[in-house]
């Protein structure tokens, strides 16, 4: 039986995936194939190359803190705010939003992915690996499993509005989490017969202060509803909640890894039982 692990999106919360993979290895749960969206793709690719959670943890911890997305949370800009800096930032954001497709470029992402994956390709992975991305033009999830890993993952981490979409084969690709936050169903298509889905809970910013805040909060609730459908297809779903954890700051890895390890340990009896049943 082929056991697959599907790793979800969630920015810096993705360190939790490393804890999950380590707990599965400690319990000798086989991992035959992996896929992921966004940060789940970054961790998944690195794991698929090394097939050793401890090695991957060291590598990822060394490289990922070097990513600085460097964006300000302007969506929480208060209606009554008159501070010069806030006003200036809001004006800058509005100009950017009307003139280009993203707030920041992929420069730092390319550098970090280069350090992590080099020029290695999907053919170099020890276990099969695939990346979920979303094509803005066709309006569909696209699975990438050929070519350079860094190129495919760059598309999958292109959070709409934050990072620019990536052009590839006539498609305009962004973060796979648009429709497949935890790409469980897509992993089944790749041949997984037993899927463990790992979801990193995204905090809904319900204390919206303006129209954008409200639009984003409702979109997050919508995203949760779509994700619940994806996870329903998993044999076991591991949900990791990290309240207050800033998804844009990559300097707090230990907390997330521990949370991932603990969540996976709690799910282990269910995983073992369902695996036995499935066999």
């Amino acid at each position: 039986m082929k056991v697959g692990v599907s790793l979800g999106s969630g920015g810096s919360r993705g360190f939790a995936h490393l804890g999950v993979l380590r707990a599965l290895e400690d319990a000798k749960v086989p991992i035959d194939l992996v896929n992921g969206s966004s940060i789940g793709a970054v961790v998944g690719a690195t794991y698929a190359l090394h097939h050793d959670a401890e090695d991957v943890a060291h590598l990822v911890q060394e490289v990922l803190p070097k990513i600085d997305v460097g964006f300000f949370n302007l969506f929480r800009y208060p209606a009554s705010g008159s501070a010069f800096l806030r006003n200036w930032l809001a004006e800058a954001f509005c100009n950017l939003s009307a003139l280009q497709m993203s707030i920041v470029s992929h420069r730092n992402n390319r550098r970090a992915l280069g350090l992590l994956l080099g020029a290695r390709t999907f053919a170099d992975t020890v276990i099969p690996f695939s990346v979920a991305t979303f094509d803005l033009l066709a309006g569909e999830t696209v699975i990438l499993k050929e070519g350079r890993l860094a190129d495919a993952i760059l598309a999958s981490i292109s959070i709409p509005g934050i990072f620019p979409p990536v052009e590839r084969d006539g498609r305009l690709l962004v973060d796979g989490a648009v429709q497949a936050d935890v790409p469980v169903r897509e992993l089944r298509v790749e041949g997984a017969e037993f899927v463990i889905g790992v979801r990193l809970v995204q905090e809904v910013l319900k204390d919206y202060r303006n129209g954008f805040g409200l639009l984003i909060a409702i979109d997050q609730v919508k995203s949760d509803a779509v994700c619940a459908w994806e996870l329903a297809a998993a044999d076991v779903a591991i949900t990791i909640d990290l309240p207050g954890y800033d998804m844009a700051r990559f300097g707090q890895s230990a907390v997330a890894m521990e949370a991932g390890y603990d969540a996976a340990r709690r799910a282990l009896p269910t995983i073992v039982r369902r695996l036995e049943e499935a066999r």
Partner: protein
Amino acid sequence: MTSGITLVLGGLGVKGIAHAGTLQALSTRGIEVCRIVVGGIAGGIAAHAALGGNLDSLVSGLSSLFERNNARLWGMERLSGPPVGERRLAVASLSYFLRERLFCRMNLARESVLGWEIVDADLERMFGEARASDLRPRIAFAAFDLTTWEEVLLEEGRVVDLVKAAAAFPGLLPPVRIDGRQYVSSTLFCELPLGPLGDADRPIVAVDIPGRVSRERPTSLLEVLTLADEARGDALKRLRLEKADHVLRLDGLASFHWGSYRRIPQLVLRAREDVLEKIDAGFFRPT
């Protein structure tokens, strides 16, 4: 299937106005509806019809309302996707940039671009003190509750409040307060309000207006966010449609976008023709 059906109507943005054509077609062919569950602008359309109002004059009133407020809609038409084949001219692009920028600035500074004052007088004139219990057939208005963050159905109270709650598109119109709770339109969350329905509501007939078919390459951050948000909405709608017993899909409306407010009469006409065609082909024939 023609007796006791629950008709589910929705539609993102102005696409909901198409249901004036849907309701006219059903009435023309004598299809009886037991209850309508409706989200978005279609709530006002359905309520007007349920109080015996004339849908043609309502559609013409809505068309002129959008025309009058053209300058304040901040590029909504463009943001929703231009008509197929339209080329971007420099002057149009500049105007779009300025409007999109203003849309962005206003949404960072307050809750919405427009205020209810632009329609309050018209809504009061149309619905006055009418209450939900006066509507025939019964109507459940779908809205998104900002207290529980869930899609809910509102079936009691003043019609004017319920119509506003169903139509309060976030970012465009302010939330509506009813009995201490804040509501916005549920169509941003899911175009068709199928979520709160259950077995007791069967048979459920959902009228689906397809999402955009011609996806032009986005040029701005707002366009990227809009495309991603619409895609997520399409995914959720597909999942929710599995709840419906029958789906009446208006494929002829695929070229209309949620911001196509200059093509409202054509939108309604096309919906009427599509529904009539489907009824005549046997859609509502007993199975």
